[in-house]
Structure formats: structure tokens, C-alpha cells
């Protein structure tokens, strides 16, 4: 445990000296938190939706809103619209950190003395992984809490605001978020084993954000309705995907392979 903690602290000391990493890690969560708050500021407090009845809304909204009126249901839809946007933070942030931490070790040739020490491969990967996952999860949670507080201040209807603490949100933020972080780290470890530039690793890793972005667009266009069942399915798929990807990342991160083939 001491070794893992030491690796995490070392990683943070190293990667957070990099201005690009600091920018990515801080700007993205801030932007993703600010965007829905600005949207709410201009719509949440207004009477724009007051004239809407349930009949004006698409039929799938009925299951989403339950007893809420048409206007409140629209507001609720707007408020929850941004869950998937928050889901991008735990993917992108650890990808940035992991890309810099692993490719950085390759380029500065710091891996050899580390691998010559009695630290195990699993300890290295857990340490490096957590160094990416912890800031990502904390910034996701922080952003979410900030958003919830903002929504509380801007939206008059308390029933709509209380929906932010529905199980679907809780699972999304507190379960799917960390699972997505692990997904991001595993992808970065695998990609970092093949490239020599952290920016290239980050850019390639970025492709894997597209499915999350696709979900967001799907929800915006009404193709996907984000409900409890969908989030639970997402969590279940991610658990399996993370297990497969992390074990594959361990396979890729073999001491011997790193020294003899990582060029």
C-alpha cells in the first residue's frame, strides 16, 4: 500500500508540473460545469416552458417525468441532459494524466530503475491508474455538486431540482464515473505502450471519448432516453469492459516488453 501511495504522490508531483496537463485537468471540468449552469441561467428561471402540457412532449418523456407537469418535465429533461456531459470528465482527465505519466517515463528513461526495484507490475499500474482516476473522479463529483448547487439556486421548482439526486444521477456520477475513469486509464496504458509522444497518446486515446459523446448526442436528439435501466446497463457493460481492458493493460505492461520493445 505504501508503494502505491508513493507512486500516486510521485505521479502528481510530476504531471501537475506540466502546464498542459493542469489546463486539461482543470479547464474541462470547469467548462462542463459552467455550460449547463449558463444554460439553466437563461432558461431555468424563466417561464418559457410553463405553457407546455404533457401532450406536447414526446411519448417516452412520460416514463421519465412521472407526475411532473409538461413544463416541469421539459425543465427536468434539460437539467438531466447534462449527465452524459459530466461523464466525459472521468474519461478525458485520466487519459491525459496516464498518457503523460507513462509515455513521460518512457521518454525520460525513468522506468528501468523503477522496474529494477521490488515494486510489482500490478502496484505500478494501480498507482499510475489511481493517479489518473482520483483527480478525474474528484473533479467529476466536484463539478456535479457545483452544478447541483447552481441548479438549486436557479431553478425554482424544487421537485425538478430534487430529481438531480435521483438514483439514476447517483449511479451515473458515483458508479459509472469511476468506471469510465478506469476505462480511460486502461486505454491510455495500452496506447502509451505503442507511442513515444504523450500528445499522440492523448490524441489517440481521445477517440475513445467518442462513444460517450455519441450517447450525449443520442440523448439530445431523443434517440436515447437516459433512465435508470440505461445507466445500470452502462455500468454493467463498463464493469466487464474495464476488467477485460485492465487485464489486457497488465499484459501489455510487462517489465521485459517495456525494456526490450518499448522504443
Amino acid at each position, binding site marked *: 500500500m505504501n508503494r502505491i*501511495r508513493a507512486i500516486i504522490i*510521485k505521479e502528481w*508531483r510530476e504531471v501537475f508540473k506540466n502546464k498542459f496537463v493542469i489546463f486539461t485537468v482543470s479547464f474541462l471540468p470547469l467548462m462542463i460545469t459552467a455550460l449547463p449552469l449558463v444554460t439553466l441561467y437563461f432558461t431555468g428561471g424563466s417561464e418559457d416552458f410553463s405553457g407546455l402540457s404533457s401532450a406536447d412532449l414526446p411519448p417516452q418523456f412520460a416514463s421519465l417525468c412521472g407526475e411532473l407537469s409538461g413544463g416541469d418535465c421539459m425543465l427536468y429533461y434539460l437539467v438531466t441532459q447534462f449527465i452524459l456531459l459530466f461523464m466525459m470528465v472521468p474519461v478525458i482527465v485520466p487519459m491525459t494524466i496516464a498518457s503523460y505519466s507513462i509515455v513521460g517515463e518512457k521518454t525520460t528513461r525513468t522506468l528501468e530503475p523503477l522496474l*529494477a*526495484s*521490488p515494486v510489482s507490475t500490478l502496484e505500478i499500474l494501480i498507482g499510475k491508474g489511481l493517479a489518473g482516476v482520483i483527480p478525474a473522479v474528484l473533479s467529476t463529483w466536484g463539478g456535479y455538486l457545483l452544478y447541483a448547487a447552481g441548479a438549486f439556486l436557479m431553478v425554482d421548482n424544487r421537485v425538478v431540482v430534487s430529481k438531480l439526486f435521483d438514483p439514476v444521477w447517483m449511479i451515473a456520477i458515483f458508479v459509472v464515473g469511476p468506471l469510465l475513469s478506469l476505462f480511460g486509464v486502461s486505454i491510455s496504458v495500452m496506447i502509451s505502450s505503442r507511442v513515444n509522444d504523450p500528445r499522440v497518446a492523448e490524441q489517440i486515446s481521445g477517440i475513445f471519448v467518442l462513444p460517450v459523446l455519441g450517447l450525449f448526442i443520442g440523448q439530445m436528439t431523443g434517440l436515447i432516453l437516459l433512465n435508470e435501466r440505461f445507466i445500470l446497463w452502462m455500468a454493467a457493460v463498463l464493469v466487464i469492459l474495464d476488467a477485460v481492458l485492465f487485464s489486457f493493460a497488465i499484459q501489455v505492461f510487462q517489465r521485459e516488453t517495456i525494456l526490450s520493445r518499448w522504443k
Partner: protein
Amino acid sequence: MNKSEPVIITRELTRTFGQTLAVNQLSLVVEKGEVFGLLGPNGAGKTTTVRMLAALLAPTSGEARVAGFTVGVEDQEIRRIIGLLPEAPGLYDALTAEQNLAFYGEMYGVENKSQQIKRYLELLGLWHRRFEPVGTFSKGMRQKLAIARALLHEPEVLFLDEPTSGLDPEASRLVRDFISELKGEGRTIILTTHNLEEADRLCDRIAVISGHLLALDSPQVLRRKIFGRKVVFHVVKASQVMVDELEKFDFVTETQIVDNKILAAVENPEEHNPILVRALVDNGAEIQFVGELRRRLEDVYLELMGAEKERDHE
């Protein structure tokens, strides 16, 4: 480990990378407290050998034991009891000297971490720079810090891969002096280097390798094996009569006059020199000095490499 057992034993140690044979059936024995040099040209397999012994690479075939532990089987145990200074120091530039060592203190589970950090930073003259990021350090300081890192957990065996490579003469001397101090403490050190003078000065024994083992012995014995032993008689005026007189002895295998020096190749100078001195004096030689012709290790190395190239051509 049995106390009488050598610290390192390799038997026909072989490592290939795809079709490339990096180390070919290398058999060595390194005793406790020995400073053992690995010499060879670039690509000779020195670093691969060190990496195998440091449990970083598994042998393709053959066997290696380090402090009683088998490479490829008991790798974690080996990593605990060895210290490695790789070719590149591999320090974290963003971290301070102290943070670098503290990190490795955790990796090796060093109990008295703070004392050990203080001890080695003081020994290597870096204590006053302990709070400065390593990125601001000179090459020599980085190398010294990397040595401190390798020693922090008091390893039984220390592997130093090109410890003075790329350092200026002053920094090289500092590092060499420190290795001499470690030698004085009775540590087992495996040293790979291109600096033959350094190897000559520091190593008890040397293995010259080029994929496979070309020669293995102490620098002195290697010189004798390859060039024999030559005695130099500095005389006031050398003459052919004196040389002819020396050639009468069976134990003199070669003679030469260079200026006023007479060179004689003999098997055992300790035994034969008094006889030769007497013979020269009897033949009118006024002897100023008598000494043994000391060949540089570089000559031994080049001779071995030349012979190896000839074998390759054949």
C-alpha cells in the same frame, strides 16, 4: 545463501532478441566483495547481461544465480538485494533530490529512510541541494544522485552500467573515487564501462565479452596472458653483446633494444631478473633502472577484439 557461495554464478547464460543473439553462453563467477568489470564494444551484450542479472530480462537459456536466488524464478528476491545504476540515470526531473530518494526508499521498503537519504546525500556532497529539483542538476550531480538511489537500501550487489559515461573529467573522478570507497567497504560491484583505465584501476577481475566471453581474469593476469611479461633494463649504453648474452638463457623468449633500453621477455621476472642483471653487469652494462614493461589494459582489449574480428572473418 551459503556464505562460501559466490555472489553471482552464470552458466551458459544466453539471451536472444528475435534472431539476434545478444548474449551467448556466458559463464561467470563473481565472488563476494569483488569489483567485477564487464568490458566489450557497443552491442557486446554488457547491458543485456546486467539486465538479466538484475532480474529485468529473463534468460533465453542457461542459468544465473544472484546471492543464491535464481534469475527468472526468484526475481522479486533478487530485486530486493541488488542496486542498479542504469546507463541513463533515470531520475524524476520535477522532483527534488530528496523526493527522488524518498520515492525509492518506499519502493525498496527502507525502514530508516530519512537517515539513509541524509547519509548518502552527505556522502555524495548533495545534502545542501536536497530541496532542489533534479532538473536543475548537472550531469555529474545527477549521476551521483542515481548512485545514492542505487545504494539507499544497502544492496548486496551493486550494478553500475557506464557510471562515468558522458561525465566531465572532474565529475568522472568524483564518481570513480566514490566507487573506490565502496570497494573499500567490501561491496560486490559489477561495473560495465568503456573506460579501460577506469576498469584497470577499479576492477579486481575483468570479463571481456563480445556476445560471448573472450577473456576473464584480473587486469594483471590478462596482460601477462596476452603479452607475456617483459623486463626493461635501462643502461648507460646498450649493446648487441649484452642482448646476445641474455638470449643464451632458455627462459628469455624475446629481446629488443630501444634506445638505451634492453627489453627481455621472461617467464618469471621475480626469479630470473637477478640472473639477468648479473649477466648484464658481467658484460659491462651500467644499469640505471630495472622495471617491468606495463602494458595498458587498452592494449589487452584491442588485442582481444582484433583476434575476435579475425575469427569472425575466418
